[in-house]
């Protein structure tokens, strides 16, 4: 049975288009258009005042943090709390620049190919962002470029037998496309939706307005949590995993140009969450230490994953966000415990340089 078709059949719609209603809607639009005919464009205002306030708060948090500083990148933290507080201190002390730059590579394993001879591919999407601290400077991003590669030698052999494709249909609908296409650098619409909680989008201004006090930040984020806002596949009637939800929002916040003191506060909130533990060192050749929290999904047959964050010991930056299978099931039933099924590698930091020029590929 085609599940999408059953949806179309069930939601049949009440009545076809009504010409009177359409004519009225068009008239309202035209009336608005006429009033805008000669309206001047409103120039965007710089947000310097907000930046100064955020800087002052950053100093306050750095002073308030009374936990010892981890001096060398090699030092091994004793507890998850001490490690996160040291990450918070490094972050709060960071110097901002004109641009927050971020390069991300998001990996995800997919089981693809013929049903009789499936194989696993690592599907990667690379993106880059240049977010201006000052609204007068342009923000840019480079649109995703996807590549894919079979994971093991056996996967490679199966992929070859499948004809070595660069495009796959997914059993659950949709497709993956790793065919090469030209890189583009595009304007980022005033940096809106750098961070989103359900329908609430955060631009740079709203990110700056987030509290730098851990308790206030936690309260603010949880204020967005409603019975509707879970994306953990839980039944709406089952009380949700608020902690897992908050952990996810905080990890997303760490990959945004939120002010240093706000990201420092995010680490301090993480330090207070139950179930968060150290997962050892690692991080793709960089001096990273991982924390993790196991999340389970009763809706998907009790499958559980370890949601790990790899944090740079030297400067408190997020290096990677990873999902490791603990109990197989859910969307990756074929993956054995311990398999890294989805992960994003980050390189982020402040920069004084101009972003690259806008470059669109011809259609």
């Amino acid at each position: 049975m085609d599940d999408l078709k059953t949806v179309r059949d069930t939601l049949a719609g009440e009545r076809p288009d009504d010409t009177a209603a359409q004519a009225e809607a068009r008239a309202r639009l035209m009336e608005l258009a006429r009033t805008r005919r000669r309206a001047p464009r409103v120039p965007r205002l710089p947000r310097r005042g907000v930046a100064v306030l955020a800087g002052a708060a950053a100093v306050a948090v750095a002073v308030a943090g009374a936990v010892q500083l981890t001096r060398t990148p090699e030092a091994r933290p004793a507890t998850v709390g001490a490690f996160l507080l040291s990450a918070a201190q490094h972050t709060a002390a960071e110097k901002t620049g004109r641009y927050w730059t971020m390069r991300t590579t998001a990996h995800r394993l997919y089981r693809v190919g013929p049903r009789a001879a499936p194989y696993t591919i690592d599907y990667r999407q690379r993106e880059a962002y240049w977010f201006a601290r000052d609204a007068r400077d342009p923000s840019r991003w480079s649109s995703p470029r996807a590549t894919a590669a079979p994971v093991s030698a056996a996967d490679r052999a199966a992929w070859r037998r499948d004809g070595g494709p660069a495009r796959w249909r997914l059993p659950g609908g949709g497709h993956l496309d790793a065919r090469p296409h030209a890189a583009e650098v595009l304007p980022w619409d005033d940096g809106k939706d750098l961070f989103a909680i359900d329908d609430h989008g955060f631009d740079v201004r709203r990110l700056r307005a987030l509290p730098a006090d851990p308790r206030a930040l936690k309260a603010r984020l949880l204020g967005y949590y409603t019975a509707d806002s879970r994306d953990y596949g839980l039944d709406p009637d089952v009380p949700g995993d608020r902690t897992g939800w908050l952990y996810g929002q905080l990890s997303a916040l760490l990959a945004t140009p939120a002010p240093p003191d706000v990201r420092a506060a995010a680490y301090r909130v993480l330090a207070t969450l139950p179930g968060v533990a150290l997962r050892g060192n690692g991080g793709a050749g960089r001096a990273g230490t991982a924390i993790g929290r196991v999340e389970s999904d009763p809706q998907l047959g009790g499958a559980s994953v370890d949601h790990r964050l790899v944090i740079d010991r030297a400067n408190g930056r997020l290096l990677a966000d990873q999902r490791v299978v603990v109990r197989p099931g859910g969307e990756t039933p074929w993956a054995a415990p311990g398999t890294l099924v989805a992960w994003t590698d980050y390189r982020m930091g402040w920069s004084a340089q101009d972003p690259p020029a806008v470059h669109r590929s011809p259609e």
Partner: protein
Amino acid sequence: MPGSPRSEDARVIAASHDDPERFAEIFDRYYPEIRGYVDRRLGASAADDIAAETFLTAFRKRDRFDPAAGSARPWLYGIATRLVSRHRRDETRRLRALARASARPEPGADEDRATERVLAAQAAPDVARALAALNPGQRDALLLVALGGLSYEDVTRALGVPYGTVCSRVNRARAKLRAALAHLETEVADHG
């Protein structure tokens, strides 16, 4: 591709900055399908209002339209979906009513088609119940795909959420939907 609707939308919206009335072309091109989408989600009277509001909002925000996106379609579906989300209670109430409605299939001449129709009618209450139980993010993503025929890439543009989130929302929504329909599949297998 000059002349294709894709590049045409971007051109018209760009022209509407200096000549606002040009935006009527976007209205004429997309009003019927946007209204149809909202009609399926909230019913006819809400659809008339929300479809009109969608184009007023789009016009006010036309500075925000990214010409690189080409087609205005995902953008308009995104605006309509945000407006629909203000009526979540109404949508849930509507779905619950559909879930309670009894399935009364009509007999048809063609046997295969009749079976299909019977199946669709039998499935409706379960589908409506499953849709009502989805969280809003999953429901929006699923209905953009199922009703709007948007690709996952388009849903990314429409909702402004990352590609991976769209995949996971749609996949989870479809998994729940299939779980809700599993017993029907079994019945068909038993009879067939």
